[in-house]
């Protein structure tokens, strides 16, 4: 556990992220928060009578006012936001070692970014139940990203269903948080919907894990015996161009249905395809 098998992780740069909403709370942080404060991000000018704080009088604006009213600068306080990552650890996530690979990278990066931004970070791994050994409560200590990585590397995805994710949703803080929901979303759409319902309070960023091997990079001809990683059922498949086209069309339709579901709830998913694209992730998170 203490001796990672692979080479040392590369230098990770924290990525910034921005919220479209104002977090509540009292701990000073990096995000413009609720309420009005004497410092933080400038928000607007208000008359002195509305906010009797003569230390913040803006002389330039006051002199420009033809009515001679005194203006005071008002600021939004900077607050922290809890960042949580919910990782689906059901059997389907075992495909291609995704959890130990891309997902661990993504979570470590998010943990690092959260800690550097002064936010607290929590990790919840779940299959049919919440997996305590892949769960870290909210914390903002240094080196958290390595802990996150180690937990995810040690995690063995297995089991069926996503009930544990509902359990994890119940364990999230009561105030609005930034929640990354990492899954391949191969569960039925109703389950996804129920899960999103349970996360109604939070700002959810669905991270849709996909693998080109089962969607585009299929062999044209041949026989494959496929076993369901969750249920263990097996099926022999005779691949041929016509069937391959049907398969790819079905995958597209499923992705379109999922995108539709997210769009109805105003969620913008982040695709996590064959490799973690840090730049695209940064861009998406900076948009808020």
């Amino acid at each position, binding site marked *: 556990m203490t001796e990672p098998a692979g*080479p040392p*992780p590369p230098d990770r740069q924290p990525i910034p992220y921005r919220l479209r909403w104002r977090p509540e709370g009292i701990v000073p942080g990096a995000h413009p928060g609720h309420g009005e404060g004497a410092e933080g991000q400038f928000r607007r000018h208000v008359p002195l009578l509305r906010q009797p704080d003569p230390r913040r009088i803006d002389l330039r604006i006051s002199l420009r006012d033809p009515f001679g009213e005194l203006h005071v600068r008002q600021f939004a306080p900077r607050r922290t936001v809890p960042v949580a990552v919910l990782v689906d650890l059901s059997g389907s996530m075992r495909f*291609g*070692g995704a959890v130990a690979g891309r997902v661990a990278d993504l979570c470590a990066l998010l943990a690092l970014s959260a800690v550097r931004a002064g936010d607290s970070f929590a990790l919840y791994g779940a299959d049919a139940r919440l997996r305590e050994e892949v769960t870290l409560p909210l914390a903002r200590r240094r080196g958290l990203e390595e802990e996150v990585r180690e937990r995810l590397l040690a995690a063995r995805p297995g089991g069926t269903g996503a009930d544990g994710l509902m359990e994890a949703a119940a364990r999230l803080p009561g105030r609005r948080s930034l929640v990354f929901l990492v899954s391949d979303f191969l569960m039925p759409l109703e389950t996804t919907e129920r899960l999103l319902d349970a996360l109604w309070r939070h700002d959810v960023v669905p991270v849709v894990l996909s693998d080109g091997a089962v969607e585009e*990079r299929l062999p044209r001809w041949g026989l494959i015996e496929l076993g369901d990683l969750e249920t263990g*059922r097996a*099926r022999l498949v005779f691949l041929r161009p016509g*069937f391959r086209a049907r398969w790819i069309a079905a995958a597209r339709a499923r992705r379109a249905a999922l995108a539709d579901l997210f769009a109805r709830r105003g969620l913008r998913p982040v695709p996590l395809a064959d*490799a973690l694209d840090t730049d695209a992730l940064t861009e998406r998170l900076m948009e808020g």
Partner: protein
Amino acid sequence: MNGPGLLDALTHDWGVDHPAVLALAALALLPLVAGIFRRRGLPALELVPADPLSRGLAAALRVTGAIAVLALVLGLAGLHRREQGIEREGTGAHLVLLLDRSSSMDNSFADRAPTGDQESKSAAARRLLTEFVGRRPHDRIAVAAFSTSPMPVLPLTDHHAVVEAAIRAIDRPGLAFTDVGRGLALAFSYFAGDIDETSRAVLLVSDGAALVDRRVQDALRDAAARTPVHLYWLFLRSRGAKGIFEVPPPGEDTPQANPERHLHLFLQTLGVPYRAFEATSPQAVADAIAEIDRQETRPIRYVERIPRRDFARPAFAVAGGALALLMAAKLVERRLAPAGSTAGMAASARAVRDDAPRRRVA
């Protein structure tokens, strides 16, 4: 009810050399449980569209595996069809060849030791009888010989190869005397246990005769009354010998002087259909035999024997074919190429070794 009957029918016609090996047939269930392919993980089978062709192929491959195992086991156990007897109807007879083995048969028709291209009587008889037997494949034939005393050679049999071998042996050097009466008694006795409704015939081949004892004469009449047979006498007449149809001058017509003629007369009194052929040359023998051939063409029910047939080789061929199919299926097996195994930061040492160049992408 049906099960034991079916089993009985199966074991009646079919058999194996090593029944214990059949216990291995239980292994034929194995391909139904475990396939030949390596199972590749897939996040969810719901990703794969339904495909009846694949389903049929999977079932066919499993059945092929079971067939391969079953055929191998049957081949190892030595599957064969047992010897079969099929009753058929044809034309023929039950025939006893009664051959004279006296030493005079070794002479030619000119009654001396054969020289040059001359043929001895026994050699001519052998050649012509062999052809005769060859023309009558459905006959059951017995062979008896007589000389100083009667010699049973072959009981009634279907095995014509044996009959031909017995006929081939008649030109061996013979013995001295000719006891035709007891020879006939022996020939009749062959039919004692024969209850078939077929025509029966005795073909007596001799070149001479001797006195038939009175007691033997009585016994022969008795036997002829009990077993209705057709009697043919092929008399190989040497030059100088007296014919059987010639009536000698009165006074000389005694059995001692003309044993052949008196045997002929005696046989006529037996009360069975009787014909005598007098042959003075190989050609005449051939004519006589052709005449007998024409006479004895009544329907006969006979059992055709089909020898045991080994099915081990076809079983192995089937197994080989099935295995070739499975091999072909195995050779077109493909695998998915998940991205995670190459792009993952946490790839194991194996992944590092295998995919070192591609890791840089990540």
